[in-house]
């Protein structure tokens, strides 16, 4: 299992991209622009998510000096 925070964010990007491919394929199948519009919203959401996520990764790296996701368990969840 990958526990590197950078790889976790990359995998989130891959999953969002797969969702976008599904939307665009469905919109292209029916000849409607709605699938592409949903992809634009996914794109905006991915940009927002990755900017906040990478800022959090930088902050966690300054706190713990590694990129392990298990290092950030102060809340004992």
């Amino acid at each position, binding site marked *: 299992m990958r526990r590197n925070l950078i790889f976790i964010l990359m995998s989130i990007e891959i999953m969002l991209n797969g969702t976008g491919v599904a939307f665009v394929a469905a919109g*292209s199948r029916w000849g409607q622009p709605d699938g592409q519009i949903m992809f634009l919203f996914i794109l905006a*959401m991915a940009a927002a998510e990755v900017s906040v996520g990478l800022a959090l990764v930088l902050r966690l790296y300054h706190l713990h000096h590694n990129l392990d996701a298990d290092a950030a368990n102060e809340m004992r969840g």
Partner: protein
Amino acid sequence: MEVAFYIAGIVAIVSTVLTITRLNAVHALLYLIVSLLAVAVVFYAMGAPLVAALEVIIYAGAIMVLFVFVIMMLNLGKRAAIAEGQWMQGNVWVGPVLLSAVLIAEVVYLILRARLTESAGGVVDPKQVGLALYGPYLIGVELSSMLLLGALVGACHLGRPVLEKAEGRYDRNSDGARAHSGGNPIRAGARGASDAP
């Protein structure tokens, strides 16, 4: 057109699998960029040229540059030079370059053919997308602009200087005031009042 779609799909799947199995973050990032470019070719072959262009510009251009910057900022240790030397070996680039060569041959073939109307469900041109985006989906555009504003404020807040430095500055100021007032903490706290008479 269908052959181009299948080849680009195979390239996307292979590069995505290579992305999630690499151990080095920079290698994974290279394969991820190739995967996004392959998905852009898939979009173009499916008859969605606007989304294909946005995939290249925003995903492979902007978001991946964010990843590159963060990986660059996290490698400030002593072993950064050694790792850099290992990354420039040359055989690292073979996989992404081969996959990208397949993609660029495909794009050249598609541009030379220049017949976009052969795809399965017909082409959805950018004018149609724009009319629908600013017609029935206007509230979605406003909501995504608010989301981007929130992300901007959040990233600015998270990227501010660390809190210990600010506390140190305030402590230094209060130490100076305490020394200036002869070690009396009450006068150090009320500096404005003690300076007045």
